[in-house]
């Protein structure tokens, strides 16, 4: 029962967040909707509130489950290390949208699971926003998206275990190469996806040429085509730097970091229980 309710919270908060981002893609054409979106004053505030509430609900559920002191300490320290990496990124501008924040979030989610990955992704963006003075209305969107990057990285771990078991290559000393290859592709995809998702929150209100902007009632296919054009013109080059950077960082750092995190996971899970 507990698992079902928890799964529902994951699903519903994801649905609220995703719908807040993607509603232009399927909203029907009505005079009311057109007027609401054309003014564009309240819509970003409402969607920001929706995303904020979705993050809030998921965080209540995630941190309401028992978290050991070791996990709390490790999560805090890992967020601190990743936030320092973002501090370096802000101080020394890197090409395009490249950011060293996502690779550690993905690798931690992969090793410690979805729950840890979500908390690490969301809180890393929050803490790095606090230390770099980057708190703003964009923060709930960044936290939600980075949280989901970490959360979905946890699914890869289970998938890879299942795949390796199916191929009969499971064991404590199996090669990490296939995992790192999958994580590289995953990091690359999230590099593009992060930018594409973050763009959607302001795209319906952006002014521009008709073939790049949204108007109510144009249909799903046309909306996707227009958003694709807008994304190609304004964001692809910027996001490509992030995607390639994620892939390169995971390729370079993935294996040693996964080994180190796995070793510490074993140490953190070691507990002595006194006989009753």
């Amino acid at each position: 029962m507990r698992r079902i309710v928890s799964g529902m919270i994951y699903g519903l908060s994801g649905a609220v967040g995703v719908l807040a981002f993607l509603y232009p893609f399927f909203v029907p054409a009505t005079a009311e909707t057109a007027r609401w979106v054309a003014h564009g004053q309240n819509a970003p505030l409402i969607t920001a509130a929706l995303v904020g509430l979705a993050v809030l609900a998921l965080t209540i559920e995630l941190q309401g489950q028992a978290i050991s002191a070791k996990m709390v300490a490790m999560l805090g320290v890992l967020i601190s290390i990743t936030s320092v990496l973002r501090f370096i990124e802000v101080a020394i501008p890197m090409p395009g949208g490249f950011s060293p924040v996502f690779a550690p979030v993905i690798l931690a989610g992969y090793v410690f699971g979805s729950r840890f990955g979500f908390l690490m992704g969301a809180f890393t963006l929050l803490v790095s926003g606090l230390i770099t003075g980057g708190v703003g209305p964009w923060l709930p969107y960044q936290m939600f998206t980075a949280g989901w990057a970490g959360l979905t990285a946890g699914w890869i771990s289970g998938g890879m275990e299942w795949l390796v078991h199916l191929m009969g290559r499971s064991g404590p000393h199996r090669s990490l190469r296939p995992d790192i290859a999958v994580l590289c592709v995953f990091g690359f995809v999230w590099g593009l996806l992060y930018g594409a998702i973050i763009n959607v929150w302001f795209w319906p209100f952006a002014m521009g040429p008709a073939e790049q902007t949204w108007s109510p009632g144009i249909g799903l296919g046309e909306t996707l085509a227009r958003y694709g054009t807008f994304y190609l013109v304004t964001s692809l080059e910027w996001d490509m730097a992030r995607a390639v950077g994620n892939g390169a960082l995971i390729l370079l750092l993935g294996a040693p970091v996964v080994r180190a995190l796995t070793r510490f996971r074993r140490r953190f899970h070691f507990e002595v229980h006194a006989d009753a």
Partner: protein
Amino acid sequence: MLDARVWLVWVLTTLVAASSARNPLYTVLLVLVTTVVGMVCASDDGPVGGPRAILSPLRFATIALPLSALFNALTVHVGDTVLFRLPGWLPLLSGPVTLEAFVFGAQNGLVLTVIFAGFAVFNQVTPLRDLVSLTPRAFHEAGVIISIALTFVPQTIRSLNRIRQAQAVRGYRMRGLRDWPPIVVPLLISGLERSMGLAEAMVARGYGAISDQVQSLRTSAGLVVGLLTLLGGWLTFLFRPAWREVGVGLMIGGGALIVAILWLAGRAVRHTVYRSRRWTVRDTLAIVGCGLTLAAVVLPSPLGRGTLYYSPYPRLTLPVFDPLVGLGLLGLLMPAVMITDKRGNK
């Protein structure tokens, strides 16, 4: 000097005002107000304040305004006053470049500047410890995680410098991405070793005694109902325009339920403060100022709310200025007035 909650309300009010008042005259007024508040309050709270933004609002404006104006003018070919025409062989850009499109782009840049300036002031004047103390009680574990992360930042930076120096002594030079592993991996391992020590200290002080309790199924079920109501409201709002009020009601109900669960979950947590800050008259007056601004952009005014919106299309006209709305926007100056008053008293 002012409570962190006052600054939170102030920055949210600035955000609402900037999003609601799409009239360049009001936007310029908001830019001036945030600049004055930033100058007065940051110099006051500077030594104990939060982190400084990498870009100053003025520098941000010098980048955002021309970029936004240029982008809009080159991509939106609407408006009567044609400045010049771009040739047809330029994909997406070809067509007339109009004065109206320039103005609309600059107006968007101004709105962005207000939002950026508001958050820059908030980041600068609110100490990190006060921001962490704003964490709701129900998020005590999240608060602990954030506190650990913030506390470890200086230590992590020191550790990073030590590792870089040690590698440099061994003749190692950072040239590109390929040179990151010998820096990042030791940094990670040393950090994790520190977290092990910290976890042991936390357990020794009885941390696990409260953190190992799992939240009740009733709380989780309440969250499910809250999220379902919120989602239902949002879907009704979008797909059933005739029931828009019902949708808004459901969204407010769902949101309120989630916030209520947060509050109820927080009641179970015992919260102690080493040195609590007292709410002062100055804090109340600053909140009243924010209320005035909200009233100006939300409530109807004698000239109508129409002056809040301005569109330069199809032909550029002068925007209308409602003195009542302008006066209301000045409510955001209240924190600066309070701080100047306190300095005068000293």
